[in-house]
């Protein structure tokens, strides 16, 4: 069952795309699939018991308030070092963006729904979505597709340093050295920390000796 009329859309959580992100964590994009524009929403499934079902992170950059719902299975959430067992049908609300959070599955096929947004501001699509969405193309070396996904995200966030940096990496891999240098330099101008990453990033090996490479 999956229909796509304009007024509404429906899908079962098992029908969503499943993209391996890291540490056995499968991203199941909901916001991107339905083009939800008012808040962030995704699901995550762990590959095996004991693997992550919520990636370790804070929300200090985006300042999002987050609400997690364990939709299937159960998970141990660790919130600023404190472990909490969360069964099916329970919710974890994290209002403080600085709290470090991670969840590990306790049952096979554990699935967690995540909702997020920044209080007091209209929702904006987060740049990490495009980076996650490009992972399958990156893994199979389909640089054109990975570049397309980053360029699409940059149309809405043209000055996003992480997106520009990742785009430069894809372009360097694709042999588009001039484009890669332009985007890398812009990324470093916007956030100098990317110069440090660039010095050792293997994706950028092909342009590291080019004049203008930000050292």
């Amino acid at each position, binding site marked *: *069952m999956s*229909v796509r*009329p*304009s*007024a*509404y*859309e*429906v*899908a*079962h*959580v*098992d029908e*969503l795309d499943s993209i391996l992100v890291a540490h056995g964590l499968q991203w199941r994009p*909901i916001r991107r699939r*339905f*083009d*939800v*524009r*008012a*808040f962030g*929403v995704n699901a995550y499934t762990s590959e095996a018991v004991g693997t992550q079902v919520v990636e370790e992170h804070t929300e200090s950059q985006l300042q*999002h*308030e987050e*609400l997690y*719902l364990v*939709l*299937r299975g159960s998970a141990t*959430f660790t*919130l*600023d070092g*404190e472990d*909490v067992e*969360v*069964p099916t*049908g*329970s*919710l*974890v*609300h*994290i*209002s*403080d963006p*600085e*709290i470090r*959070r991670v969840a590990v599955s306790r049952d096979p096929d554990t*699935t967690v*729904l995540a*909702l*997020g*947004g*920044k*209080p*007091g*501001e*209209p*929702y904006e699509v987060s740049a990490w979505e495009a980076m996650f969405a490009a992972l399958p193309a990156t893994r199979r070396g389909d640089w054109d597709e990975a570049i397309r996904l980053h360029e699409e995200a940059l149309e809405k966030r043209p000055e996003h340093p992480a997106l520009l940096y990742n785009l430069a990496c894809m372009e360097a891999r694709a042999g588009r050295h001039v484009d890669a240098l332009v985007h890398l330099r812009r990324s470093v101008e916007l956030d100098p920390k990317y110069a440090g990453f660039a010095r050792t990033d293997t994706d950028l090996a092909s342009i590291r000796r080019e004049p203008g490479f930000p050292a």
Partner: protein
Amino acid sequence: MTAAGWRVVSLDEAEHRRGWIPLRELLDVTAFGVNAWSVENAGDPVIPAHDELQVEHEELYVVVRGHARFTIADDELDAPQGTIVFVRDPAARRGAVAVEADTVVLSAGAKPGLAFSPSAWEWGARAWQRYQDGDYETALAGFREGHERFPSDWVLLYNMGCTTALLGRRDEAMEHLRAAYALGADVDPLTDDDLVSLRDDSELVAIAREAEARRERT
């Protein structure tokens, strides 16, 4: 379980108000609207039929437990546990009925392009609980509190009119009803059982005629 900056709640243990689990209020979520809805029996409405024209929210529903059947516009959708229903169009009338006993549906909503703030609906729903208990004075106080925060919401004013009528305060009821219809109330007061004591009142009849004439014009 709770600590500074986070809280864990079970849908089973959270406060239920006749099937409404007011998650946004209980958790003080401020970035988007979120609630859950629980019914005991198959055949019970788990999401009351409504549209989102007033607040223009996008809505996302997730069947957390059990099995529901959604009706959106004229379409029926089977929605077993794990189904996600996203309603983009605020004008699409949507509702759901439980297919299995003990069905729970989570709903989230907000208006694209606008910072979220809780809507008048929440104040009305809280007061409505007291109205259903027959505690009209407390219900009236709840509707009034909502009206003070959302003065242009005709539903709150209309319900203030209904509760004051049930309390036998005719003049006050008329004042609220006049204000509700001035804001565009589009219900027929002559068929509302809460207003039966005023049904022959010439002022209410005049309000009803004026409202009907306005509906015909539009």
